[in-house]
């Protein structure tokens, strides 16, 4: 029984080693190489390199040089392509000019009233449930930017202790 197991293990090991060797060696019996290495071998090493023989130091250096050079050439080509694409884009000057010319919208009356109310409450140093309810209603009539702005202003006033919070939960 033990002998059978040993035989099976040896067989599996043999299969693995054999498959690994086949993976490492090219179909013609020589070690697997990149095309550049292959070219370098044929150019520099000459016919003296026998099939399956290790690469000579000079041939290896030459192959590495070729590989690195090719990689740099590819990268340079990619950068050139990207630069060309960027150059074709319309200049953003028009957009900038339009944004500069566009004036911010006038604040809504409800936002102005909310700011005035916050200033008044800050001077008095308290924020009550009545203030919360009042601002909660006003928030619905503001635009998005105004709403965020007044929310932050009230929060900052509370966080700094400028208004004593007399509500349970949110300030609006």
């Amino acid at each position, binding site marked *: 029984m033990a002998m059978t197991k040993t035989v099976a293990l040896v067989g599996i090991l043999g299969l693995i080693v054999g498959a690994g060797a086949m993976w490492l060696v090219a179909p013609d019996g020589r070690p697997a190489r990149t095309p550049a290495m292959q070219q370098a071998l044929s150019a520099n090493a000459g016919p003296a390199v026998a099939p399956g023989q290790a690469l000579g130091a000079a041939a290896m250096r030459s192959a590495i040089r070729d590989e690195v050079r090719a990689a740099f050439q590819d990268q340079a080509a990619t950068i050139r392509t990207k630069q060309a694409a960027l150059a074709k884009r319309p200049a953003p000057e028009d957009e900038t000019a339009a944004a500069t010319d566009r004036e911010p919208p006038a604040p809504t009356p409800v936002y102005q009233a909310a700011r005035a109310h916050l200033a008044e409450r800050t001077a008095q140093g308290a924020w009550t449930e009545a203030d919360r309810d009042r601002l909660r209603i006003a928030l619905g009539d503001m635009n*998005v930017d105004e709403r965020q702005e007044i929310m932050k202003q009230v929060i900052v006033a509370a966080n700094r202790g400028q208004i004593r919070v007399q509500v349970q*939960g949110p300030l609006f």
Partner: protein
Amino acid sequence: MIRSIAGARPQTKLALGVFVVALLLGAGVTRVARAGSVDNTQVSIFTTDGLDAANGTLRAVRNSGDGTQYIGCSRYAYDTGSDSIVCYAMDSMGAYKSCFTGNDAMLRVAETLNPAAYLYFVVNADGSCNRVITVLASFDM
């Protein structure tokens, strides 16, 4: 007392024995049911890296005896397009911190809040939320 039990009838002794066993079993079950780590974090307001922060476990805060502290987040959405949360906390001394954010990731974190959650948030100087963290774990229940 011992003499009276010793002199009791066999049925009484049996009933007494069953009662004692049931009592012990009940106590044991209760003890097992309440076993495990428990987080009783009350609302705490502090600074971290120079920023205001607050934390607390909702269940523990709700069951606290002071009647002042609370912690939580509120969600705001309007048909004009803004969707945001405001998180806030007040400790037992009445100190208050709050923050505001429309950040999608923090909104999703706030959505995980439930009555057994732990909440931690950090506030930027402009009132926006620097981070919102929730923990849902057995020790928070």
